[in-house]
């Protein structure tokens, strides 16, 4: 119920921001579309912690802050490698996924993909296959620099 309320709040805010016109006819259309979306999401059973994670609050800001710094530096790094300043040494590595929940595994794999220079390819038996463009990037991942960033203690199940 809490999730439904926050989802409808979020959708209404999105609608109001995107429309930019505030008279009765248009607002009522917006209400109708929000209600329809909520109904559809209920039928698809996607209103849960994974679809709408409101329990991830405080620690996420720190995570995003450090991740954006990493994205920035790795962008510059890959750009230099493309321009030929640094060498291109493709690597394929295998990382152990010891995160406790599916959600944090997804965050881990997507964080690896988001930083240019490393892309997750495949998940098999608790191992993540990662393609990196440089040896330094591969060593950094193997040291577990990225794994330490992932917020701890988020489980996909608790209501």
């Amino acid at each position, binding site marked *: 119920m809490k999730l439904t309320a926050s989802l409808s709040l979020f959708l209404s805010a999105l609608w109001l921001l995107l429309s930019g*016109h505030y*008279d009765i*006819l*248009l607002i009522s259309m917006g209400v109708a579309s929000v209600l329809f979306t909520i109904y559809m999401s209920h039928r698809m059973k996607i209103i849960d912690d994974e679809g709408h994670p409101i329990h991830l609050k405080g620690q996420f800001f720190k995570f995003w802050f450090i991740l954006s710094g990493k994205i920035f530096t790795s962008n510059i790094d890959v750009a230099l490698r493309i321009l030929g300043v640094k060498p291109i040494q493709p690597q394929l590595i295998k990382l152990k996924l010891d995160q406790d929940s599916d959600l944090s595994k997804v965050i881990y794999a997507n964080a690896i993909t988001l930083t240019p220079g490393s892309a997750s390819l495949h998940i098999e038996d608790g191992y993540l296959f990662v393609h990196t463009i440089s040896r330094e990037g591969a060593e950094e991942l193997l040291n577990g620099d990225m794994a330490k960033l992932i917020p701890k203690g988020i489980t996909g199940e608790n209501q």
Partner: protein
Amino acid sequence: MISLTIDIVLLIFLLVMAFAILRVHHLLAVAMMFGLYSLLVAGLFMVLDAPDVAFTEAAVGTGIATVLMLATLAVTRVTHEKELKKTNKRALFIVVVTGGLLLYGTHDMSNLGDNMAPAHTEVAKRYIEKGQEETGVPNLVTAVLASYRGFDTLGEVTVVFTAGIGVLLLLRRKQKPRIKGIQGGR
């Protein structure tokens, strides 16, 4: 100036894309390129000051048409097109005649941005001046489509709906696994 440049570049991209669609024989890539083609067309509409048409083109051409084409490919077994060795004369004839007729038809159109064109002198003024208060819709093109030409749009929607039903009927699968069919097929 910049819109002219964007126009020319987009038209060149369109030409390149059309030739690419002719040359590439992987149907999946062709479907994706058709999506890009209509995205480029939508970009042209945008530069020609018609954001609403661009919106429709993007949603229908890039979104729905691509997904439908991919869904069609998913129920066929072969993703590679057969190469045609010789040109089909009748098809070429029909294409050339249709193209010629269309080119001839453009002579009757008024020039781009012509103030004295019939469409701009009579009804457009009323639409622009009274559109919002008469229909209550802030977007002018939506007002024209959904209110002033409502019956026209109803007819169009009926056509689109019929086409949608046809596509749904064609794509509906009778049995679940189609993968097994590969052994027997071809």
